[in-house]
């Protein structure tokens, strides 16, 4: 499943990120393969969403979140 399908406060482990440049970008921002990611908040029009992993706290569009494969926990 992909990250964009999670609801607020749901969590998952990042398995892979299909788009390479997005993967490089997210990794550098602290969203690391094999680590837990949580959907903190979804914007009123259902997009974008705020996600956290460790101490990293970012906003990401659904279209990009769709590239992130996760294992729901």
């Amino acid at each position, binding site marked *: 499943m992909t990250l964009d399908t999670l609801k607020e406060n749901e969590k998952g482990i990042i398995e892979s990120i299909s788009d390479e440049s997005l993967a490089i970008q997210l*990794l*550098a921002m602290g969203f*690391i393969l094999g680590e837990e990611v949580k959907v903190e908040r979804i914007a009123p029009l259902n997009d974008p969403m705020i996600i956290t992993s460790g101490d990293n706290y970012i906003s990401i569009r659904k279209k990009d979140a769709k590239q992130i494969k996760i294992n729901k926990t």
Partner: protein
Amino acid sequence: MSDISDTNIVLVGNPNTGKSTLFNLLTGLNQKVGNFPGVTVDKKTGYFKINDTKYNVIDLPGAYSLNPNSEDEKITRNYISDTTNNDLIVFVADVTNLKRNLLLCSQIIDEGKQVILGLNMMDLLYKNKQEINLEKLAASLGCPVIPINARLGKGINKLKESITNYQVNPTPFLTESNNNTIDDTMLRFKKIDTILNDCVTNKGENKSYLLTKKIDNILTHKIYGYLIFLILLFIIFQAIFSWSSYPMDLIESGFIWLSDFVATNLPEGVLNDLLVNGVIAGLGGIVIFVPQIAILFAFITILEDTGYMARVSFLMDRILRIFGLNGKSIIPLLSSTACAVPAIMSARTIGNPKERLITIMVAPLMSCSARIPVYTILIALIVSEDSTISIFNLQGLLVLSLYLLGFVTALLSALLMKWLIKAKQQSAFTLEMPIYRAPRWKNVGIEIVSKVKIFLFDAGKIIIAISILLWVLSSYGPGDTFEEIDKKYVQNEQQLDKDELSSKIASEKLEASYAGIIGKTIEPTIKPLGYDWKIGISLVTSFAAREVFVGTMATLYSVGDEDNTKSIRQKMMEAKNADGGKLYTTATTLSLLIFYVFAMQCMATLAIVYRETKSIKWPIIQIIYMGALAYIGSFVIYTIFS
């Protein structure tokens, strides 16, 4: 760039780690802002001295890694990858988020650079009840590690000491090299994890985000979030348009006094005339906007400094994206209501090139403060000050509709460009949500001063130049036409009284001047919009800057009123068209208003668009599409109302 004997210190780090705070601390007042060659990212440089040795400090834009994702990150990458310099890197890390910070640090070490690791925000580490073994960390990274608190200035002397005594032979961080960036990054994180497990004791937890998440529950709330943003917008506009009137009145009377003073104290003649009607008039027209620009940027800096702007981008992204814009476009669009020049510069933070370009292209459609004097004077011609619709002041309503018209047109134009402009590359919209912090008032002050400076110097240069040009164009004519006019009237001297005579001479001279010739030449083109050649002159001069309209009107109509007994408004009210009818009818005035909402009449903005897009193509397209909007819009309005 600098003396060979000097040492260069380069500050590098993730965004929001306290680099600028450290930079200000190190350099104090010895700093200046320039540009990196070829690009438009601010380059902050400064210096400090220890025992007569000068250390130059360069503040590079914040970056997450050496794999750039925005214009800013590219600068940092290129600077680090440049092997021709031997600069000493001070890597500023947020100690509460070391894992992520160390990624870039490790990449820089592997570029073979000399690095000092400055661990910033030590106060927060103590608050979180975490401990860190500095010696171990330094040993594992192979570089000096200095704990600091940039906010309070703690550890700065140790850092300077480490800079002066630097002597380390860099050892690579990763021993195995990997060409795949993702694998390489994962390897780095793995090693960083091992090091951190060894050096950091996690007794406590990171509390920094707890409060921030609580605040976010309100500020990004589905209903309150928007409500709070709207209220804030209202307060900002209130401030820009009503609080600023007091200093603006002061500036205005100051310039009236100055021009009076110069006019009466300098000997009469060309120089006097040029100074009063060219230079001082032009200068006054710019300085008057300083209060509004200062207030706007005070608000914007506070909103950015506290971290609130990122939340606004989050709330607005979905809506703005429909129009090909970006959550971050809200900042340039908002700033454009003061002045498009700094606004367009602030679009640099938008990572996606296409969304950034569209933002730049439509921002000048937002009504900037230079349009206010034009709106004010024109609206007063057709609506009296005290007319109301129920409780609303009609003049106010009209101004508001012009603002909305500009805003809506900006969105629609953006939508059109979204279809027309091809995206070169896809780019993700990721935006860090910084923790909420109190604004740094000193930073707000610095930001205001630097934005006002850009406005005064970049825009000011052009406006002054055009004011002088305008003065020349309206004071001289081809050949000896002016002398002919003088001669003609010498014979009539007896019949007319002196005032009437000089007014006749002046208006005839204006008509014969170069400006008059230009106005007459374009008259057929603008006749369908309801304009005559005098308005034509104003349109031409307004191309330099919109507010020049008022000055031009003053010049054009002061002819025939040497004692300046009437206000410009009265003079325009009495102005006649060729058939002897009223010139500023409702149709003509509305048409002119629409023209000023849409037309790209600002040299300074065009210059900045050229600088930011590095292509002459975009400013030209801007002139054409905004010009077409203006012409068609004015034509339609004039036809409807006449």
